[in-house]
């Protein structure tokens, strides 16, 4: 055993992707297929006075036109996480209709669906749909939305407040601040982002009347979750009569977790129309309908003693929910942000309050990192600001504040001030390694030399923690989750000893077909080619929760590993019977059972065959070699690390150039380093995108100004450098693989590292703070401002 785990195995799924043979949802063409186009609101807030469908109905190729009237008896989209007000009242949860009948609440809100013989005809007919709107005042800024007299998004939600929430010890924290030697504070917006997976969302609804059976193909990260929400909450159709397939999915980053109206609409309408219906977003639709990320308005303060020890943290955030609650929206600023404010620091007093607010904007939900980048950003900015004001080195101030190492076995887990218990950590080790790679002292020296020549080099740190694989179900249920957070697997050993495994987790770029196969091959001692990993089809795989929150390996991989253990256990019994030996005398290694101390052995394939041709079989044992497993972890996992960015800023133009980027992450045990590095690279790029380029800006009227790739810049190849990536390994003590999760670390860490680097570069000019994204214009203006004052 152990030959493949830890190896950079080349991905087995790649062949179809590099030869143009992958199957994304929009690639599927079914007999009799029709095409849907969604007519969307051009206004942020307007009353629909009247819709006249007659001209659209009569347009060439049009099969049906559906409006809010047609779906008024269909439920709206449900929210999957309930957070209560501080006073115990339940959060405000207004209906999120599939098609709006009365009032549109954001640009892009769904108003009608046109089904036609072709996409073009459906789109052409949309031009002929006569809709009369009465345009109303809108509010997009969450801080303004809570002001008295602001336009209301939902009439029955006073001051647009969805809920307020708090965590930590307020009195203790206030006292810590009162007694502190030094306090730093920052006010900023963690700006709104658009996820922009390169594959636009797509859904195909099919209804087979003869079998009374629905099929939904959808670009989703979690087909079972979609099926459950669709059946039990929205359409009220029997779950066993619905199959949801998420075939190849072109990236998600959170945006494809959620249940969207189009999925329900094509499924519902396929029955009305009697033919399959395909809908695929155009990018301009993705911009206004894929759930956005971040959008926090925050005031954060950190208190220090004379020596630079952090003695308190106080955070107050207004979190924008958008116009409706998306599937997991309430959990993001609370349980994925407020609970992460301990960071990697031994801060003794923390208090955080959140006000979640509706505005006339696209709903906001989890986007890569989801709450944790916001937590890391404010912590890392505050720590750096503290270092600067106290005249300390940013590496040193971190070092003296780190939680000391603990492995979660010999030393217990670390109990934070904000509810979580960290599993294992050695934070300083990642800092040391990162400093070594970057050559810190030399680099500071270069920085000094550069400054003498009028060049502005900056070095920025981010020492972060992340929480992955949130669990166990009972705990998250108590916190308001309306779903379990376990994962499932089926291990099916075929009679010839080949192995098919089915996972409830889903891959859309993460390479499960390889990583999971490595686990199977190593554990059972079979060649990698003998393993097939199946995911993404509710008809094939057991009920599973899908992929988000970097949970696949920690939760799904562990479910698989537990299933494999059951195979070995039963296999051992069969082998003992066939070898006429006692179970205790057998040893399983490299795909063979051997009677210890003898050369008597039997192979995995022989045992598999015996299990299905049980002519000579242990008495009373069921034939077959197949196990289904559900794994509910004992705790979250907590990866961590240190990232260092080096930038140069041109004060004449404000342009920031990334020079180097070092990432030392600890994601626990690594199954496939190639894939883990890839996840880290991609994550870093997305975080850098937030730091330097990306912002979904709304104007006063609620128009999304950055609504295409022409106005919304995501990182391109020449914006970035090659990253210097390394890691330390602190295994997770509570899952059978020791893994923690690697999908979001890069994004969580990199935004703060880059912004800290830019501020470090410009510190000699008197710059103390900058608002993201650090576009040349914004940096230049900030420089002008400090020079003028």
């Amino acid at each position: 055993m152990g030959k493949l785990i830890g190896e950079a195995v080349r991905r087995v799924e790649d062949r179809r992707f590099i030869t143009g043979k992958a199957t994304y949802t929009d690639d599927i063409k079914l007999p009799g297929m029709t095409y849907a186009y969604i007519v969307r609101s051009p206004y942020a807030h307007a009353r629909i006075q009247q819709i006249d469908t007659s001209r659209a109905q009569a347009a060439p190729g049009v099969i049906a036109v559906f409006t809010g009237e047609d779906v008024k008896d269909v439920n709206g989209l449900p929210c999957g996480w309930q957070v209560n007000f501080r006073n115990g009242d339940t959060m405000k949860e207004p209906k999120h209709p599939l098609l709006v009948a009365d009032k549109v609440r954001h640009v892009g809100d769904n108003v009608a669906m046109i089904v036609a013989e072709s996409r073009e005809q459906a789109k052409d007919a949309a031009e002929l749909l006569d809709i009369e709107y009465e345009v109303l005042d809108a509010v997009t800024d969450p801080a303004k939305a809570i002001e008295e007299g602001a336009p209301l998004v939902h009439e029955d939600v006073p001051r647009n407040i969805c809920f307020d929430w708090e965590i930590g010890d307020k009195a203790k924290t206030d006292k810590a601040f009162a007694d502190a030697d030094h306090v730093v504070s920052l006010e900023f917006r963690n700006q709104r982002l658009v996820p922009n997976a390169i594959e636009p969302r797509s859904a195909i609804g099919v209804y087979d009347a003869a079998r009374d059976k629905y099929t939904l193909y959808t670009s989703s990260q979690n087909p079972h979750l979609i099926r459950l929400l669709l059946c039990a909450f929205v359409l009220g159709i029997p779950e066993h009569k619905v199959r949801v397939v998420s075939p190849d999915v072109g990236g998600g980053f959170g945006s494809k977790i959620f249940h969207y109206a189009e999925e329900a609409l094509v499924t519902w309408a396929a029955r009305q129309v009697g033919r399959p219906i395909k809908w695929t977003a155009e990018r301009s639709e993705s911009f206004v309908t894929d759930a956005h990320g971040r959008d926090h308005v925050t005031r954060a303060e950190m208190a220090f003693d004379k020596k630079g020890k952090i003695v308190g943290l106080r955070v107050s955030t207004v979190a924008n929910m958008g116009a409706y609650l998306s599937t997991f929206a309430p959990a993001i600023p609370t349980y994925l942000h407020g609970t992460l404010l301990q960071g990697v620091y031994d801060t003794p007093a923390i208090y955080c309050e959140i006000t979640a607010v509706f505005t006339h904007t696209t709903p906001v939900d989890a986007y890569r990192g989801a709450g944790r980048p916001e937590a890391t950003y404010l912590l890392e900015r505050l720590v750096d600001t503290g270092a600067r004001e106290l005249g300390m080195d940013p590496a040193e101030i971190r070092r003296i504040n780190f939680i000391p190492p603990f492995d979660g076995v010999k030393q217990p887990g670390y109990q934070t001030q904000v509810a979580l218990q960290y599993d294992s950590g050695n934070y300083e080790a990642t800092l040391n390694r990162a400093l070594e790679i970057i050559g810190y002292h030399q680099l500071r020296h270069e920085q000094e030399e550069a400054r003498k020549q009028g060049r502005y080099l900056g070095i920025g740190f981010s020492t972060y923690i992340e929480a992955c694989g949130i669990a166990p179900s009972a705990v998250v249920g108590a916190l308001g989750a309306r779903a379990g957070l376990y994962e499932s697997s089926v291990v099916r050993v075929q009679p010839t000893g080949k192995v098919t495994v089915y996972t409830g987790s889903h891959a859309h770029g993460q390479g499960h077909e390889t990583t999971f196969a490595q686990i199977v091959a190593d554990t059972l001692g079979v060649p990698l080619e003998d393993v097939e990993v199946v995911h993404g089809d509710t008809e094939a795989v057991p009920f599973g929760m899908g992929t988000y929150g970097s949970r696949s390996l920690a939760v799904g991989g562990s479910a698989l590993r537990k299933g494999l253990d059951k195979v070995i256990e039963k296999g051992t019994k069969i082998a003992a019977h066939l070898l006429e030996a006692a179970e205790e005398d057998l040893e399983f290694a490299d795909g063979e059972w051997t009677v210890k101390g003898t050369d008597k052995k039997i192979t995995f394939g022989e045992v598999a065959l015996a299990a299905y041709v049980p002519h000579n079989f242990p008495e009373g044992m069921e034939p077959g070699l197949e196990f289904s497993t559900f794994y509910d972890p004992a705790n979250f996992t907590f990866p961590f690390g240190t990232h260092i960015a080096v930038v140069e800023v041109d004060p004449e133009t404000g342009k920031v150039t990334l020079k180097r980027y070092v990432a030392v992450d600890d994601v626990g045990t690594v199954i496939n380093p190639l894939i883990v590095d890839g996840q880290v690279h991609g994550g870093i790029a997305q975080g850098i995108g937030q730091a330097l380029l990306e912002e979904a800006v709304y104007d006063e009227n609620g128009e999304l100004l950055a609504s295409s790739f022409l106005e919304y810049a995501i990182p391109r190849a020449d914006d970035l450098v090659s990253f210097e990536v390394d890691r330390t390994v602190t295994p997770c003590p509570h899952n059978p693989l020791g893994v923690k999760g690697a999908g979001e670390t890069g994004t969580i860490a990199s935004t703060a590292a880059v912004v800290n680097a830019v501020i470090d570069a410009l510190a000699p000019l008197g710059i103390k703070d900058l608002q993201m994204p650090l576009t040349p214009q914004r940096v230049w203006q900030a420089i002008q401002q400090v020079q003028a004052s």
Partner: protein
Amino acid sequence: MEIPIKVTVNGEVYEHRVEPRMLLVTFLREVLGLTGTHVGCDTSSCGACTILMDGKAVKSCTLLAVQADGAELLTMEGLARNGELHPIQEGFWREHGLQCGFCTPGMIMAAYQLLEENASPDEKEIRRALEGNYCRCTGYHNIVKSVQYAAKKINR
């Protein structure tokens, strides 16, 4: 009013009548069923639709099908020969140059054009050449390495 066109795609000749407004990418995907060419945007920005037309990398969402009349096209499906991967495909596999794979066909086609013009590009040149192709998954790190791998292999 449909217009007859004749195009060679991956060595095969196709004759079809198409609407004058049909995009080339729609022709490839919907008419020929060659779904290896992808659509990622509606502003000619992302490069997911990149193919080779008469040896030049073009964004097939910016051209009409009728503009390809008489042209020779190469798409993702035509790059491997007799089951043997092209060095660029092999590079993307060896160096983990793809994750979700959605940008990959366009990336590979753009890389193909680059290596035709510059057999040994340095990192900067690779990054500049791929500037019109977006990838949201890889951070481009391994895409650069994939192209370097291919260049080395082709030059050997």
